[in-house]
């Protein structure tokens, strides 16, 4: 029952092959050229909406901390994998009017769901960070009030200060997308429109 050297080598090769197969199955799509994007604390987000008596604009003026996004090419595809998450505190929203701010937080049920969660999924192409400005699209999952929904976001990529890049995105969402009821007062005589326009600006430092 003594195994020969060649049998041992063959088994080792098979094991390496199996390991490589498993690894490639686990991470099938990533090419070698991964880049890291550091999302800086001065990134911000704005939500614009309206009622039948006024318009409102609520901002999270500063993200406040840093997060990391990983950008990697996808084999045989123009698309790019963009992975990473951003969590924004609902209580950071400021509507420039304390009553409206509290009303928005109540509508978004911040006592139960204190975070607005954004998960980045992909970009339509590898961004050209050397260009002054370029346009691209990407998929994100937005989680709000316990509901997650996927959106295709239209981005603009701009050169920012100090070699940083700015990723600007806008998306129209609806309260009802997240099973939220737009606020209505006085028996519905004062109504908030279901549609919200979200604009965000991520200040990014690219690390090769």
């Amino acid at each position, binding site marked *: 029952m003594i195994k020969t050297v060649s049998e041992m080598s063959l088994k080792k090769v098979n094991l390496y092959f199996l390991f490589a197969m498993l690894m490639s199955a686990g991470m099938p799509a990533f090419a070698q050229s991964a880049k890291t994007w550091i999302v800086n604390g001065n990134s911000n987000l704005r939500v614009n909406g309206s*009622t*039948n*008596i*006024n318009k*409102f604009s609520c901002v999270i003026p500063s993200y406040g901390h840093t997060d990391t996004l990983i950008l990697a090419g996808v084999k045989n595809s123009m698309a790019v994998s963009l992975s990473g998450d951003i969590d924004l505190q609902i209580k950071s929203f400021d509507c420039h*009017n304390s*009553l*409206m701010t*509290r*009303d928005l*937080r*109540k*509508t978004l049920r911040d006592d139960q769901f204190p975070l607005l969660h954004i998960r980045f999924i992909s970009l339509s192409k590898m961004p050209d960070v050397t260009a002054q400005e370029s346009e691209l699209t990407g998929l994100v999952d937005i989680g709000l009030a316990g509901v997650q929904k996927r959106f295709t976001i239209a981005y603009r990529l701009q050169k920012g200060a100090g070699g940083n890049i700015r990723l600007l995105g806008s998306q129209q969402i609806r309260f009802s997308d997240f099973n939220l*009821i737009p*606020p*209505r*007062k*006085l*028996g*519905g*005589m*004062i109504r908030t429109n279901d549609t919200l326009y979200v604009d965000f600006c991520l200040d990014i430092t690219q690390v090769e």
Partner: protein
Amino acid sequence: MHLADTMKKVIIAGLMAGCILFVLSYGGLFLAIQFFPKLFLAYNNPLFNSDGSRDLLFYLHAFIISFALSWFWDRFKSLFKGPSLIRGIEFGLVYSIIALVPVMWISFSALDITVAMVVSWLIYGLLQATVAGVVFARINP
């Protein structure tokens, strides 16, 4: 028999006043929101119900106040003298001084609401009670 007649009068007067107040109150409110939207900005406040779950109660208010005032009128109508309009105005003032002013006072002291809001509620209630008083003076003199 006398009690039944009285109850009938109170209910009929209350119902009629309720219908009239319903149209005037909510019609007036709707027009006020259209023409003076800035006066209503303060209602974007978490103090006010915003999920629509109490809309029915909100719209029933015209009938609740009408039935309550109809009973009050029937008990004290002999104290209000003169033509219908004068009786209605006096009735509205009495209701406002006895019921509205103290309630508005405690509301303003305890809730995060504005002076303009409290004054508008006071005027709204005064007008409602005056209209109801005129209706009662004609239906149940």
